[in-house]
């Protein structure tokens, strides 16, 4: 078994992306990866991951692909254990799905599926990676939450409920840190991706490259566990939103 640690210039040797086709996740991997970095993609869609692996070939030392469904508790735990037989410097938890709110409300199975992926599945993956990193003695964990987790909004509270579970758990890891593992909880606002292409952009919309640059800046400076809003101004927006009367929030969310 070989073991890996991040070098003095911030260069990781092995990065894991859970949610291996996530546009934001892949942008983060690209921004952290160098010609000597091995990349591991873990996710449900092998075909799309193979395409992503091809795109990453030039900026990495090789890409491994693992089929894994975070909602399959025992399967994903087994796969993660296999991945961690070689150490992972940085793991990014980007597994998630954005359901259409109306459809999720109309069909409990759709809602449950969204809650399982965004909430339970992502949170379980986060905890497994955290445990593996504690065992290996070092590591950096990046969890992608969302501003949707800040306050239930009529348009996306089912998605937000799942993300809130991940967010709350990850906040716990940030606020009660284990010194061996640095945790970054990322709370992006509206990010322009394929997943959101059918929606009108919200104020302070950003793109995957901007989120990735913020994560890379954190990783390169190794500032320790923290919560990061992207863009940073959203921290204040979220604070204001939490104070808004419900009636006004409903109006704004139309």
């Amino acid at each position, binding site marked *: 078994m070989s073991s890996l*640690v991040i070098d*003095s210039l911030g260069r990781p*040797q092995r990065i894991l992306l859970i949610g291996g086709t996530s546009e934001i996740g892949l942008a983060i991997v690209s921004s952290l990866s*160098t010609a000597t970095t091995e990349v591991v993609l873990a996710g449900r869609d092998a075909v799309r991951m193979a395409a992503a692996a091809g795109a990453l070939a030039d900026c990495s030392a090789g890409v491994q692909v693992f089929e894994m469904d975070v909602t399959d508790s025992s399967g994903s735990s087994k796969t993660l254990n296999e991945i961690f037989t070689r150490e992972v410097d940085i793991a990014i938890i980007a597994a998630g799905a954005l359901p259409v709110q109306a459809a999720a409300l109309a069909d409990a199975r759709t809602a449950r599926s969204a809650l399982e992926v965004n909430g339970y599945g992502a949170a379980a993956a986060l905890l497994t990676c955290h445990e593996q990193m504690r065992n290996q003695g*070092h590591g950096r964990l990046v969890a992608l939450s969302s501003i949707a987790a800040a306050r239930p909004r009529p348009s996306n509270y089912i998605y937000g409920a799942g993300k809130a579970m991940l967010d709350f758990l990850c906040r716990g890891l940030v606020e009660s840190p284990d*010194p061996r593992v640095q945790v970054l909880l990322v709370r992006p606002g509206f990010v322009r991706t394929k997943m959101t292409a059918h929606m009108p952009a919200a104020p302070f919309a950003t793109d995957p490259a901007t989120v990735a640059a913020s994560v890379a800046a954190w990783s390169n400076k190794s500032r320790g566990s923290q919560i990061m809003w992207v863009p940073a101004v959203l921290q204040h927006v979220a604070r204001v939103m939490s104070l808004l009367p419900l009636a006004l929030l409903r109006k704004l969310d139309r």
Partner: protein
Amino acid sequence: MSGLDVEKRKPSELTWQRFTGWGMTSPTVAREVQPTSTEEVIDAVLQGSRMLVRGLGRSYGDAAQCAGGLLLNLRQMTSLTWHDDGIVTVGAGMSVRDLINIATPQGWFVPVSPGTSWVSIGGAIAADVHGKNHHRDGSFGSHVLRIGIVDGNGRYCEIRPDDPRFWATVGGMGLTGAIVDATLQLIPVASAKMSVSTRRTQDFDDTVAQLQRADSSRYSVAWLDCLATGSACGRGVVTFGDHAPAGARSTRDLRMSSPVLAEPKVTVPRWSPSLLLNKHTVAMFNSVWHKRAPRSRDGEVQSISEFFHPLDAVAMWNRAYGGRGFVQYQFVVPDSAHEELRSIFLRLVKAQVPSFLTVLKRFGPGNSGFLSFPIAGWTLTVDIPTDVPDLMRLLDSMDQQVAAAGGRVYLAKDSRMPAQMLPQMYPRLDAWLQLRNQMDPRGVFASDLGRRLHLANAPRD
């Protein structure tokens, strides 16, 4: 207490602490214990958690870090036994500094002294450190007669130069076991002073020629101004000398002081601003340092501290680089690779890296250490803040150039070399890996450097 059971120790001793190398980069956490005897070291090894001995933390990169593991601090294992003819057996936790202070008044001196005296004897062996006398006397391991080591099976072994395990341990970066004591041959000296010659040089060729001319002296070294360009490119100050004869006294200090080595005069504060050392301040320092050196002077009497350890006068000087930390890049290329040496130096000048500690030295033949750094040739050392633009690409490319020239990068300084460069630079790596696996089959001893460079892997087919 008969053994070192970390679980029974006070919780305060079991808290995770943050460690970095001297370059203050890549922090990781570990628990630290201070065994007081070989038996306690054996107990710790038998418990089998990932561990490493950390000496005085002067290796620049991650060689003395063990992420998530146990660091054995041997500062309490500093026994000293005199034998005949300048032979001493010392605890691995003793510093070169303490040994100089004890031995020099009795007419003996350490055979090899690195650029700082704050180095433990165990660390000096593990990194096979060199000094200004390498071209004549070789590195530290060449003067070690016996090593007492606790291997990965928890067995105390005495290994000598006729045993391959000895040469796997000399330069083995602490990964073959916990060095707990060693027997060394010291060299006789007639005074506690140095007789020093200085030549101020005008350019790179002049520096190289003057340093070659100084080969006949026991000690020699050149400091270079790596920011000067044009006709002054490669200008520097060459100093060489030997221990002064009996009766010699410094012109500045007429008293034979005790202890021999001076205490630091100032300490750089913990929160030193990063901007203190930038291209402009370092260029100014380099220029002043060059101009204040005599054009040519012989027979100046200097103290041991002044000659061997000038930077020890400033405690925690590494903090001057601020929170960003720095990389020290040291490589050696064979004598024949003179043009590569010039080419690499010119690349550093072109990149205008703000290094105030750029040092060129001559190496004599290497020893039998499997991972020992020195080979006959030229070694250049440069300090580079980590925020120099495009530093990763510059150093990666310099690695390639060094390896292609038959040279190598010093592991005790390294914090960023890609692992795939190692087999080319250290052709006896596989043999070392075999020996390491034999001495530590369970992989108890581990460092961040070892993990980064895959030194804990099984030998390749």
